[in-house]
């Protein structure tokens, strides 16, 4: 839905920004122990017109909410502010860093907004109030309706400065919703904004899976009567239908390649196969009597975790793609399914049934140690990592027994509902860092 021509024109007017070495404020391994305190005051409307004032408010609010969504930041309440950059000025010369240190901030973001002829221009600055320096300065200009995208672009820059990763701001989450009377696939922005319907065939649609470049979506659909695999390019609206006898389900793309694994049963048993993105079978990956389903790849694509019934109950196994050697990973509990391999490290999040209830657990691939991330909150299933491995989307029946999509941190803290639509929402799948839309 984003045409290049509408996108942000980032005038790389890098205002005097002495860019020094990478900040090491946040280590991804335990980022939630200390949230970075940051202040985002209202932006300043440069000419003081009404449309500018509105854009200034919406811009600042969105920026604050977006940073807050990452769970890395603690946004300081505006009521505590000792000065008002929207009145006194937005540059380093205008602000008094002590005023911000005194209220507990480590960082400050100011913005100046100009609106003219349907176009909005924003100057955004990130300050380190302890070092009393500007860390980042960017100018964005584009159509007023693209303000969201501009704010997201700036957040990418902020995250890159402070954590070394671009963050999740241009990612999407695909999911299944029943609001229109049948299970159809939708996708929304990372924060639940702007859900768009992707399938409309009034049958049963399940298991969306994003390719590494965010351009293709694979899913299972009963559109032709039985469970077939659809591989669709989202912007060009073209693709392949893979429709062999039996089930064609649970697709999962190989990182960095136009290939995917899926469970097929055309040879009789339910096994995992490797396919090209154009729907040709490359080879069979599993060879064991019983169910083999739900593949998920390690970040380098060299190992694949999956669910197998070969031990008598559904458990998670890991296969080396080169040698084919397979080892069991989960030993606790009698029903472990839905694995999702963290895109940046050696942990796998999955769904475990204990005492008839489903909860999200995370397991370390090397040590096999596992921890429950949810408990006593209904049934929690279908976990999916954010592209930076810091957040987990999942479905939960904790509110009134109706399944909804939630997002929590990798540590299991701070769960929040992502969005609410008519019907039930299940099966979330988080895209790579940049995803195509419609």
């Amino acid at each position, binding site marked *: 839905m984003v045409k290049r021509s509408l996108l942000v024109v980032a005038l790389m007017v890098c205002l005097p920004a002495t860019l020094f070495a990478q900040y090491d404020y946040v280590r991804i391994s335990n980022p939630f122990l200390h949230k970075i305190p940051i202040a985002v005051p209202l932006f300043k409307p440069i000419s003081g017109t009404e449309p500018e004032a509105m854009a200034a408010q919406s811009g600042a609010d969105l920026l604050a909410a977006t940073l807050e969504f990452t769970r890395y930041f603690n946004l300081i309440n505006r009521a505590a502010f000792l000065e008002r950059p929207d009145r006194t000025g937005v540059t380093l010369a205008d602000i008094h860093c002590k005023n911000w240190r005194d209220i507990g901030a480590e960082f400050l973001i100011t913005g100046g907004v100009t609106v003219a002829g349907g176009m909005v221009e924003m100057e955004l600055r990130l300050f380190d109030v302890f070092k009393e320096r500007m860390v980042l300065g960017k100018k964005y200009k584009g159509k007023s309706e693209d303000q969201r995208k501009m704010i997201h672009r700036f957040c990418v820059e902020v995250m890159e400065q402070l954590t070394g990763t671009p963050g999740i701001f241009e990612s999407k989450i695909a999911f299944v919703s029943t609001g229109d009377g049948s299970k159809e696939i939708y996708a929304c922005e990372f924060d639940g904004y702007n859900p768009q319907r992707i399938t409309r065939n009034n049958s049963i649609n*399940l*298991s969306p899976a994003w390719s590494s470049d965010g351009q293709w979506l694979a899913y299972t659909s009963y559109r032709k009567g039985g469970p077939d695999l659809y591989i669709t390019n989202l912007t060009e609206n073209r693709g392949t239908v893979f429709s062999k006898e039996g*089930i064609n389900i649970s697709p999962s793309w190989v990182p960095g390649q136009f290939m995917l694994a899926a469970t097929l049963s055309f040879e009789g048993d339910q096994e995992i196969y490797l396919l090209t993105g154009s729907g040709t079978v490359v080879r069979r990956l599993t060879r064991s009597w019983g*169910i083999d*389903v*739900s593949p998920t790849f390690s970040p380098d694509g060299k190992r694949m975790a999956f669910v197998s019934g070969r031990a008598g109950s559904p458990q998670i196994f890991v296969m080396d793609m080169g040698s084919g050697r397979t080892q069991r990973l989960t030993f606790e509990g009698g029903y472990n399914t*839905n694995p999702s391999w963290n895109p940046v490290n050696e942990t796998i999040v999955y769904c475990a*049934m204990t005492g*008839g209830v489903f909860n999200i657990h995370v397991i370390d691939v090397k040590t096999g140690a596992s921890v429950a991330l949810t408990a006593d909150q209904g049934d929690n299933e279908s976990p999916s990592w954010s592209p930076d491995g810091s957040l987990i989307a999942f479905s939960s029946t904790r509110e009134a027994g109706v399944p909804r999509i939630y997002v929590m941190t990798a540590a299991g803290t701070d769960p929040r509902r992502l969005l609410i639509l008519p019907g039930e929402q299940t099966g979330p799948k988080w895209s790579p860092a940049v995803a195509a839309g419609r």
Partner: protein
Amino acid sequence: MEKKRLFVMFVMLFAICGLVFTVSCAKQSVKSEAAELETESSMAADEASQMTAEELAEAEAIAAEKAAAREAFVNENIHFDFDKSTLTPAAREILRAKAMWLRDNADTAVVIEGHCDERGTTEYNLALGDRRAKAAKDFLVDMGISASRLSTISYGEERPLDPASNETAWAKNRRAQFVLR
């Protein structure tokens, strides 16, 4: 002349009786024919109409039985234990009856649907439903039904019979269902 007349009468008697017996359960024609006859053939005619009424009742009974058997075939599901695709003894009994029906109705073809209860994950249940449908099909093939008459489809947990979330509903939903093609 008397002998000939007698002979002709005998022949007529035999002919009429023969006609009456070859006529199928068309009560009316039997009755009309019976009405045409003289007293010598009236007794035979009565006998004939009685038998046709019996035949008709029997035919109706057979038709009802056939309809019941067909309904049983389509409406009687087999059930599975949680997370299992193995056939219970009860399931085998039902499948044996279905095999008999399929033998008696050699011109039919069936879709066997595999279903699961709502617990557990979507993808795993699609695979489990596939196993359940195939377990039923394999049993029928072992009983001599041609595999080409049996196709399978899995619906996983997507088409429950009972939408409730309790053990009774779940037991009902863990099933293989038989649909005539």
